[in-house]
């Protein structure tokens, strides 16, 4: 028990260290924050269609994370996590693990959803999960980012029981349900990928046949 506690404490300190300093930190922009928001909103080209402009709206999570520089006090963080956990939806057939081959494709694709007039994505371009931008996955892909933790051999290490499958699904759907103000996008909440596509990415991480667990 003591050992567990020590580990727990160690981890909390490691993750939460910046939180202690944050009490003294003011919200970004200080007294100009409101004016900055107005300026930001009026900085876009008039030709942007209205439905593009809705992408600038902030929900409570976004607003709060901005205010606390992505490092909210624990109490507020917990509130956001609850709020986000309540958003998670599942595929109609209830199956949370799909086809790893489809997941492998989605993990590599970083395009989709770009708007504007300079280099927008062509209509119908696949929106991927872009997992490699931030995570190491299959070892053969050397061009991986390190914003998130390495996930290579994820299934080998974590197993493939129901709890793990659900955890991975939930995390991809809305990572803010676990860590408020995480860097990871809320893929499911924003319908960036469909619940079915999330099950494929789950399979890519967990399926023993997936290259994530094979090389």
């Amino acid at each position, binding site marked *: 028990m003591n050992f567990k506690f020590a580990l727990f404490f160690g981890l909390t300190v490691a993750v939460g260290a910046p939180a202690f300093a944050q009490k003294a930190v003011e919200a970004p922009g200080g007294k100009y924050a409101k004016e900055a928001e107005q300026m930001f909103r009026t900085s876009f080209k008039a030709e942007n269609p209205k439905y593009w402009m809705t992408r600038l709206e902030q929900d409570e999570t976004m607003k709060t994370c901005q205010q606390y520089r992505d490092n909210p006090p624990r109490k507020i963080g917990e509130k956001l996590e609850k709020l986000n956990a309540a958003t998670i939806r599942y595929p109609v057939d209830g199956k949370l693990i799909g086809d790893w081959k489809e997941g492998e494709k989605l993990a590599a*694709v*970083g395009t989709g959803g*770009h708007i504007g007039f300079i280099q927008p994505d062509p209509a119908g371009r696949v929106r*991927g999960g*872009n997992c*490699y*931008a931030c995570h190491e996955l299959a070892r053969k892909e*050397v*061009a991986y980012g390190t914003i998130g933790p390495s996930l290579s051999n994820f299934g080998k290490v974590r197993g493939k029981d129901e709890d793990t499958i659900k955890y991975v699904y939930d995390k991809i759907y809305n990572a803010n349900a676990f860590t408020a103000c995480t860097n990871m996008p809320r893929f499911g909440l924003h319908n960036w990928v469909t619940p079915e596509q999330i099950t494929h990415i789950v399979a890519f991480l967990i399926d023993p046949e997936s290259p994530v667990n094979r090389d």
Partner: protein
Amino acid sequence: MNNQRRTVLKSGSGAALLGMLAAAGIITPGIALADWNKAAFDAKSMADTLKALGAGTPADSKDVQVTGPDIAENGAVVPVGVASTLPNVSMVAILIEKNPNALAASFVLPEGTEANVQTRVKMGQTSNIYALVKSDGKFFMATKEIKVTLGGCGG
């Protein structure tokens, strides 16, 4: 083709003719030299390209080097070079196996020019790069793989 060009360049009358045409504004000096090896640049496969270059089946040689990084951060600009310690190198070329057309560039090296040329090429995907060298009238080759990686924000 190269022989033909040299003949033109060497022959006095050829040069005089070129000079006259250029002076008359009919052709620019650049165009006068035109004998771009269309067949070689249009060839798709390695084998067809080598054939069009008259290189047949070149022997692998460790005296030929492909210079360049193992990994390219972007396929639009990949620094590659050819170097060789073989004697009397008169021509070198850079071929990219998986590009739509394998031949990227070829260079004729007159006497006195070293067998060491560097340039930058586009690569559509990870591929083997071949350096082709003509030394004492015979063709030699070397290869290396260059990995082309995707960029950050997926743009």
